[in-house]
């Protein structure tokens, strides 16, 4: 075996948020194969489909391999290869001009998910040095951050996200609006292991039947965006049938009596009517979750990509809270790191931007952005786009795009208009996406196999080192190196915490008393696993208890108790509009191959899922005269155009509900052809009403109409 490879390097995958252990096999300085690391506790040798496809990206001739500057008009597709020196000098010079003319907060960067977590901290240090207070996280209002807000308000930590559930030790798993097979593959494996090894029961709540729905003991096909009503109905049953953990509730929660009173408004019959679920299924789900112990709960995008997302997830968070499933083996476990370790959240918090509370919409959404943020402090993304367009509350003239904003954000036409209006658009992505096409300068990043850093795992008590496997290919570079170089060339003061990459890694570990070199040597460091940590420290909320009634929401003038509210435009809230747009649309169900917008260029993956398929129940399709496999137009009341996807008959969805995948574009095409035809965000909207706490816009549970696009 040894002769077949020159080197074997253990490192960490960055294909999604899982951070699995990887073994990379190198021959002639080329990564010829990757595999899951069997010694790594989190994935135990497993590596998912998209993780295995990394070598296709690494050696793809279509990857952006050199710095380039635009020739001709924006989006014309004409580029000139330039040196790093020239590229960085252009960027630094133009950023200084823009700062001089429009002020420091006219400069920002848009962080995405494909690979760019690695430079969040150094980008923030750069922004701080520039003097900007604009953090542009294009999905900050409806992905992860709202869950942080809702969980932090209620439980003191984001433990109903993928990091909290202790699946492998669980006897009952409740998956709510999330499919880890697609979004967090190693967690899907944990769920299946719990079924196989513990006989765990699985409850899945989702409008769309998915892979784990197929394995569920109980599948609840809920009407899109009515999860708030269902959670309140389940709480009603659990409380009224006295299935809750009285001792825990008495000792460790506040607001139980008020919650009890509130849930009386949600008797099961009413909830069944709202959610389209059978009464007996709701009762069964509530009883199963409350009585089979320990139970682990996970909620994700399905309950976040909507209006009222904070109250929805607050209601869901009350379930583990009152059933005694918090911080117990097999329940939802609180994270902690080896003492002294600086997590991403702590680092971002240390490197404060100036005038945080004067940032875009900080006054409107103080729990999202500003000094009181309970999330990772993103500005309200639609308001950033609107600031670019209107100059209000202040102008934004330069964006460094590290994601594919054109397809990722709602209202493609508006986003493109905004990007074209900028004085400077810098791009760092692996491929020439529709967003990169609009850039002035491209600074090509390297993949995780070509860089090193500190990471932490889903496991509550682990950190690990990502090791560099090969040197960056062609002229791709580590994004953090770019950050330091641009700071230097702009003549900015380098961060006092770390002046270069080496110091950056060491800074994260410094209070642990070890260096990054030592962590790389060890590979992984963990603390003994402990439960019921609250008995010593209480919970990380203002009261130190689980806040069923939220003191922070009360203080800010919001409803302190969870409630149900329809999305602004549904057949229930807008029946007249629904006559013209009779179908309920959910957008952006994730696929295991594509990490949001990433990987669409990889041949192994693309051949299996070559195009977005508009999923529709056969009865509904026939009602609207749509044939299986034909192209159809999709229109929404707020869309500026119409988009086209191929009809796929499936009973995965209830009649009357359709699903259109998001983030689609055709990488083999250029310009509008590439991003308008397949992209569902061509028909979504970035305008109010926004959720009053998170600022979310609904992209699940909209209205739409569909008709044949065949002549």
């Amino acid at each position: 075996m040894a002769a077949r490879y020159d080197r074997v390097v253990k490192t960490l995958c960055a294909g999604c948020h899982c951070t699995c252990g990887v073994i990379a096999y190198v021959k002639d300085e080329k990564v010829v194969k990757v595999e899951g690391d069997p010694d790594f506790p989190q994935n135990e040798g497993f590596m998912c489909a998209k993780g295995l496809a990394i070598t296709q990206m690494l050696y793809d001739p279509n990857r952006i391999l050199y710095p380039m500057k635009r020739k001709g008009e924006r989006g014309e597709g004409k580029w000139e290869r330039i040196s790093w020196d020239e590229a960085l000098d252009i960027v630094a010079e133009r950023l200084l001009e823009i700062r001089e003319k429009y002020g420091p907060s006219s400069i920002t960067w848009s962080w995405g998910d494909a690979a760019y977590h690695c430079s969040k901290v150094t980008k923030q240090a750069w922004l701080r040095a520039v003097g900007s207070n604009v953090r542009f996280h294009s999905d900050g209002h409806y992905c992860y951050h709202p869950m942080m807000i809702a969980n932090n308000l209620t439980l003191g930590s984001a433990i109903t996200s993928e990091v909290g559930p202790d699946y492998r030790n669980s006897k009952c798993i409740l998956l709510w609006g999330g499919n880890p097979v697609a979004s967090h593959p190693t967690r899907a494996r944990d769920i299946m292991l719990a079924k196989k090894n513990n006989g765990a029961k699985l409850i899945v709540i989702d409008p769309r039947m998915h892979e784990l729905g197929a394995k569920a003991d109980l599948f609840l096909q809920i009407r899109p965006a009515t999860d708030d009503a269902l959670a309140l109905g389940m709480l009603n049953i659990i409380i009224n049938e006295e299935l809750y953990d009285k001792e825990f509730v008495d000792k460790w929660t506040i607001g139980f009596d008020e919650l009890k009173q509130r849930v009386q408004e949600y008797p099961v019959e009413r909830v069944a009517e709202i959610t389209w679920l059978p009464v007996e299924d709701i009762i069964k789900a509530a009883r199963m979750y409350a009585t089979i112990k320990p139970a682990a709960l996970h909620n994700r995008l399905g309950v976040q990509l909507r209006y009222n997302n904070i109250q929805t997830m607050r209601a869901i968070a009350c379930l583990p809270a009152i059933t005694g499933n918090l911080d117990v083996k097999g329940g939802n476990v609180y994270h902690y790191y080896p003492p002294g370790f600086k997590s991403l959240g702590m680092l971002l918090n240390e490197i404060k931007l100036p005038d945080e509370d004067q940032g875009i919409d900080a006054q409107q959404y103080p729990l999202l952005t500003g000094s009181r943020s309970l999330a990772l402090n993103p500005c309200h993304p639609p308001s950033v786009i609107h600031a670019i367009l209107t100059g209000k509350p202040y102008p934004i003239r330069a964006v460094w795009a590290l994601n594919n904003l054109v397809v990722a954000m709602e209202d493609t036409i508006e986003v493109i208009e905004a990007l074209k209006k900028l004085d400077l658009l810098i791009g760092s992505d692996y491929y020439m996406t529709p967003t990169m096409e609009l850039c002035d300068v491209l600074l090509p990043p390297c993949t995780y196999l070509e860089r090193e850093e500190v990471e932490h795992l889903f496991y509550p008590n682990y950190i690990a080192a990502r090791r560099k496997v090969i040197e960056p290919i062609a002229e791709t570079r580590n994004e953090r190196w770019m950050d330091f170089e641009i700071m230097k060339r702009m003549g900015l003061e380098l961060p006092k915490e770390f002046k270069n990459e080496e110091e950056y890694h060491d800074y994260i570990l410094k209070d642990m008393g070890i260096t990054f070199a030592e962590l790389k040597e060890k590979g992984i460091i963990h603390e003994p696993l402990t439960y019921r940590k609250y008995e010593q420290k209480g919970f990380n909320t203002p009261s130190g208890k689980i806040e069923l009634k939220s003191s922070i929401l009360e203080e800010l003038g919001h409803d302190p108790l969870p409630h149900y509210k329809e999305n602004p435009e549904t057949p229930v809230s807008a029946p007249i509009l629904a006559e013209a747009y009779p179908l309920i649309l959910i957008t952006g169900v994730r696929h295991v191959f594509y990490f949001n917008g990433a990987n669409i260029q990889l041949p192994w993956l693309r051949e299996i899922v070559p195009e977005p398929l508009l999923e529709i129940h056969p009865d509904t399709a026939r009602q609207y005269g749509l044939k299986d496999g034909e192209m159809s137009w999709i229109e929404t009341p707020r869309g500026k155009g119409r988009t086209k996807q191929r009809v796929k008959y499936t009973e995965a969805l209830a009649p009357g509900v359709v699903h259109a995948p998001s983030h689609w574009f055709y990488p083999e095409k250029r310009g509008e052809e590439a991003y308008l035809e397949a992209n569902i965000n061509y028909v979504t909207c970035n305008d109010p009403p926004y959720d009053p706490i998170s600022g979310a816009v609904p992209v699940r549970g909209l209205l739409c109409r569909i008709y044949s696009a065949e002549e």
Partner: protein
Amino acid sequence: MAGKKQLKLVLDEIWCYGCYTCEIACKQEHGLPAGPRLIRIEREGPKRINGRLQMEFKLATCRQCPEPDCVEACPEHAIAKREDGIVSIDAGKCNYCLICVDACPYGALQPNPDKQVVQKCELCSHRLAEGLQPACVSHCPIDALVVESE
């Protein structure tokens, strides 16, 4: 024709959850381009059966037939059934006429346009020879794929 030991790939459908890992692991192991898919997991459903929404995952790959139609069909005699039951293609003899592709009732024979040869699942016989499991089996997250010996 069949020898004593007959190897074939079997999927425990109870545990397979359609993660596609086996398919991409196979691509990596054999350095395949887009096109040939030597193993596939096909979805049946979701369909409502007796009021319950169901979806199943089925293995679609070479069945290493006892009397393979592809062996009969190949004009170059490039395909043979081995002692251990594995149906194997001699790439050197394959002239890419694709007659075997049509002959297989299961769609298991896959043209590789880059190499101009037909390929199929041979249970990673090179790995079996080293005492390893086929790539798909070793990558399956839930041990749902196994090589059975009949």
